[in-house]
């Protein structure tokens, strides 16, 4: 749930992005990168539908401050319906987060195309900006 901003809080964002959202020339970035006031762990997916609701929930349960799934624009999925599936899974996971007393805004889906690695970091930065208002994930330092 929403908390007062924590001074010095640098959100850890996990960015799960579909390979097809990148510019064809771009080398897919992977691993953790430092942004301005946040860090982003970039995870390459062959399609946004390759991620399941439980995996997004598990990432938040393990303490990431935010999860961002980056999918292709509507009707631009190479697997035809992959990005729609991803959208429904995000909605399902957000519903469960909310029932678990977690801010569902910690998980979001963005649609984008022809991204450079910098654009991806900018998207993560915007998500991090919203997460800053929520404060750190209350799951940090948990058992599971």
């Amino acid at each position, binding site marked *: 749930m929403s908390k007062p901003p924590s001074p010095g809080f640098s959100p850890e964002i996990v960015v799960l992005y579909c390979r097809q959202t990148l510019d064809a020339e771009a080398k897919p970035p992977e691993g953790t990168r430092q942004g301005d006031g946040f860090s982003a762990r970039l995870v390459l997916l062959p399609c946004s539908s390759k991620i*399941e609701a439980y995996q997004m929930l598990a990432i938040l349960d393990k303490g990431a401050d935010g999860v961002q799934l980056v999918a292709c624009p509507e009707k631009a999925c190479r697997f035809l319906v992959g990005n729609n599936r991803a959208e429904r899974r995000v909605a399902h996971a957000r519903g469960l987060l909310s029932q*678990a007393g977690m801010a569902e805004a910690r998980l979001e889906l963005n649609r984008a195309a022809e991204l450079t690695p910098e654009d991806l970091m900018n998207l993560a930065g915007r998500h991090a900006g919203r997460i800053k208002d929520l404060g750190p994930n209350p799951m940090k330092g948990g058992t599971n």
Partner: protein
Amino acid sequence: MIVAEWKPLPELLAGLKGYKNLLLVGCATCVAECAAGGEREVNTLAPTLHMALKNQGQDINIITRTLERACEPEFVEELAEIAPQVDAIMSLSCGIGMQLIAERFLDKPLLPGVNTTSLAIREAPGLWTARCRACGDCVLGETFGLCPVARCAKSLMNGPCGGTRKNGRCEVDENTDCIWYLIVERAKARGELESLNQVRQPKTWSNSAHGGPKRIVREDLRS
């Protein structure tokens, strides 16, 4: 398949009060097919419960397992090693599997994670609809292969009730076909509408839930 669905989260959370180590068990057969208790659902419920309880100030360690078939003792036995490490077991298998687990681990509280609701088919992705209620006296031969017990809201044996909507849907639920409407349509298509004029006598329910707990004995198979 046997169909189940998650109990509401507040009910699950209330049942977990005070526990520190939970074994969350799924079943890879029917409840996996109906997306209630397979490995995927176990892996979805575990972080959901963990986060919800932690937000309520309760730290719980959740161990997950998914059995091939929770209604077979051989598979339930796979929990023997892990069970002593937990204070309770929550099962996402149907009521049958749950009882086998409870019977095998008598010293552990068994918490049902799902409500077992019906015998159903997956009609479309994300949609399961009832087909049978295990009534013990199958009448499909008289009703053109459509079950009035499970699929008529009133389980009428001599339908329809008079409430069928103009579009052939049931008066009780606009999203559900009136099964008697479909039975009549099938009878017509076969040219056997007359057969429905024959009044079906009161049904024998004693071969199912109304006859006491069911026992089937096959001497040739007993050891």
